[in-house]
C-alpha cells in the first residue's frame, strides 16, 4: 500500500491507542503533550516513509518512535520538573528505565480509564464529546470541527479549556472503584449517547463522517460491554439502542445526502445483522431489575425495526413513550409520543394533545402538526410545514418539508 493511504488509515486505528497509553502514563496534566508526541510520530512517519519506504511493520515502527519520544519527555520532565507523578518517579527510580507499555491489554485498560476521565461532569457535554473524539477516537481537529459544524479555532479553544479544567480538578486516570461504577458509568453513557446522536441527527452534510461518529460511539460502548466490571444492563441497553438505530443508517439517507423519512424507507436496506445484534444486547440488558431510559428507548427502537405498521406496534410504542417521559422528559420524546398517539387514536385526538405541548419554537413540533393536519385540514397543514421549514437549520430536512408543501398545494 502507498504511504499516502496507509498513514491516514494508521492514524485512524493507532493514534487513539498510543494517545490513551501516553495520557495514562503522563497523567491528566499532560494530555496535550501526549497528543503532540503522537502527532509528531505521525509527522515523522510521513517524512521518513516517503524517503526510505514503508517499514515492514508500520504499526510497530510508530510504537517504537512514540515510546522513545515519550521516554525523552519523561526524562526531561523528571529532571526539570519535580511535580512529575509519584508513580512515574517510582518506575524510573526502580529500574532507571522507563517502561512504555503498548501491549493490547494496556491499550485497552488505558482507553477505558481515559473514557472515565474524559466523561467528567465538570466539563460541558460538547467538550466531553470533543475530547472523546480526539483522544479516544483519534479524530483530527478538522474532522471534529466538521462534525460540530464549527471551525478549527473554536474546537481548539473548547478542547484547551476542557483539558485545563481536568488538570485543575486533578481528575484521575483510573477505573472508578466498584462501589462507584454505577454512578460514574451514567455519565460515560450520556456522553456516548450524545456522541451517537451527534452522528445520527447531525445536520452536517458529510454522510461518511456522520456514520463514523455513530460507529465510534458503538465501538466505545462495546469496549464497556467487553469489560466485565462495566458490563452492566444499562450499558447493554444503550448498545442495543445504537444497533437498532444504526440498522437504518443506509435506508435513511439518500445517496445525495437527503433525509428519507421512516415511512418512506426501503426496508430491504435495513441492516439485519445489526438488528440481530440489537436484540442480543437487549436480552443482555434484561438481566437485573433496573429499567433505564436506554432500556425503554431500545425497546422503542426495537418496535421500529418490526414490520411496518400494525396496531400492536403503535400501542406498544405509545406505551413505551409514556414510560420514557415519566423517567425523563425531553421535547423529542413528547413529540414522538404524540405521533404514536395519532397512530393509535387518530389525528384529531393527537392534535388536541399536541396543542398542550408548548413547543412553538421547535421545527419538529410544527412538522408534527403539519403531519397531523394532513388529511384533516390542508390549510393548517401547509401553515405548520411552512413554519417548520423556516425554523429548521438542516438543508436536507428543509427539502423534505418543501416537497410536502408542494404536494399539499397541488391537491
Amino acid at each position, binding site marked *: 500500500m502507498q504511504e499516502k493511504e496507509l498513514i491516514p488509515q494508521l492514524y485512524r486505528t493507532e493514534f487513539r491507542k498510543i494517545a490513551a497509553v501516553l495520557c495514562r502514563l503522563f497523567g491528566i496534566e499532560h494530555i496535550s503533550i501526549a497528543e503532540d508526541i503522537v502527532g509528531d510520530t505521525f509527522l515523522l512517519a510521513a517524512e521518513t516513509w516517503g524517503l526510505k519506504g514503508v517499514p515492514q511493520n508500520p504499526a510497530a515502527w510508530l510504537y517504537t518512535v512514540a515510546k522513545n519520544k515519550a521516554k525523552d519527555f519523561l526524562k526531561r520532565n523528571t529532571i526539570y520538573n519535580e511535580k512529575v507523578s509519584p508513580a512515574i518517579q517510582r518506575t524510573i527510580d526502580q529500574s532507571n528505565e522507563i517502561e512504555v507499555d503498548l501491549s493490547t491489554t494496556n491499550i485497552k485498560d488505558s482507553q477505558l480509564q481515559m473514557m472515565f476521565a474524559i466523561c467528567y461532569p465538570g466539563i460541558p457535554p460538547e467538550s466531553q464529546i470533543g475530547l472523546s473524539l480526539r483522544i479516544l477516537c483519534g479524530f483530527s481537529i478538522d474532522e471534529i470541527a466538521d462534525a460540530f459544524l464549527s471551525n478549527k479555532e473554536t474546537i481548539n479553544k473548547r478542547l484547551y479549556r476542557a483539558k485545563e479544567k481536568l488538570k485543575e480538578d486533578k481528575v484521575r486516570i483510573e477505573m472508578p472503584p466498584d462501589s462507584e461504577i454505577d454512578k460514574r458509568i451514567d455519565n460515560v453513557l450520556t456522553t456516548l449517547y450524545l456522541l451517537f446522536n451527534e452522528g445520527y441527527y447531525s445536520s452536517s452534510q458529510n454522510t461518511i463522517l456522520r456514520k463514523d461518529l455513530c460507529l465510534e460511539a458503538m465501538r466505545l460502548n462495546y469496549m464497556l460491554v467487553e469489560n466485565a466490571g462495566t458490563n452492566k444492563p444499562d450499558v447493554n441497553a444503550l448498545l442495543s439502542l445504537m444497533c437498532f438505530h444504526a440498522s437504518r443508517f443506509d435506508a435513511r439517507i439518500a445517496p445525495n445526502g437527503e433525509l428519507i423519512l421512516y415511512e418512506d424507507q426501503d426496508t430491504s436496506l435495513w441492516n439485519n445483522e445489526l438488528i440481530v445484534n440489537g436484540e442480543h444486547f437487549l436480552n443482555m440488558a434484561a438481566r437485573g431489575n433496573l429499567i433505564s431510559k436506554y432500556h425503554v428507548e431500545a425497546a422503542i427502537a426495537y418496535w421500529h425495526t418490526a414490520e411496518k405498521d400494525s396496531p400492536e406496534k403503535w*400501542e406498544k410504542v*405509545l*406505551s413505551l*413513550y*409514556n*414510560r420514557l*417521559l*415519566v423517567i425523563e*422528559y425531553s421535547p423529542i*420524546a*413528547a413529540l414522538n*409520543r*404524540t405521533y404514536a*398517539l395519532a397512530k393509535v387514536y387518530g389525528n384529531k385526538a393527537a392534535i388536541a*394533545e399536541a396543542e*398542550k*405541548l*408548548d413547543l412553538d419554537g421547535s421545527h419538529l413540533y410544527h412538522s408534527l402538526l403539519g403531519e397531523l393536519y394532513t388529511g384533516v385540514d390542508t390549510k393548517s397543514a401547509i401553515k405548520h410545514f411552512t413554519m417548520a421549514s423556516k425554523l429548521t437549520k438542516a438543508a436536507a430536512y428543509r427539502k423534505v418539508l418543501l416537497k410536502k408543501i408542494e404536494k399539499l398545494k397541488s391537491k
Partner: protein
Amino acid sequence: MKDFVMIYRSEPLGEIKLTPEGTMAVSKEWENWIGGIAAQNKLVSPGARLGNEGRTVKPGNVVTNGPYVEIKEMIGGLSIIRAESIEEATEMAKGCPILNVGGNVEVRDVIPMNG
C-alpha cells in the same frame, strides 16, 4: 411553576368486575393520562395507586378497619404535577380517567414539609 397534588377519589372499585380487556383498557387510560402530563413536562411524580387494604389509627390506640370511615368514597391514588396556577391545574385534571368511572379529582397546592 408550583406543585399541585391530584388526589383521585372514587367509590371502592372492588365491587365492579372488569373483564381482562376492560382492565387493560383502564390501565391504558391511566398510562396515557400520566404520559400526557409528562409530555408537557409537568409531571413531578407519577405518585402511587392505593390498594383496598387499610387501617385508621386514632387517638387512644383506637384502630379502625378500612381506609375510609363514613363516606363512601376512598382515595385511589395521587400524583404530583406542576402548573402555573390552581386554575391551570384544575383544567388539567379535567382529562383524568377517574372521571369516567364516576370518581373525582381533588386538586391541592403542595407545601413542602420540612424536617
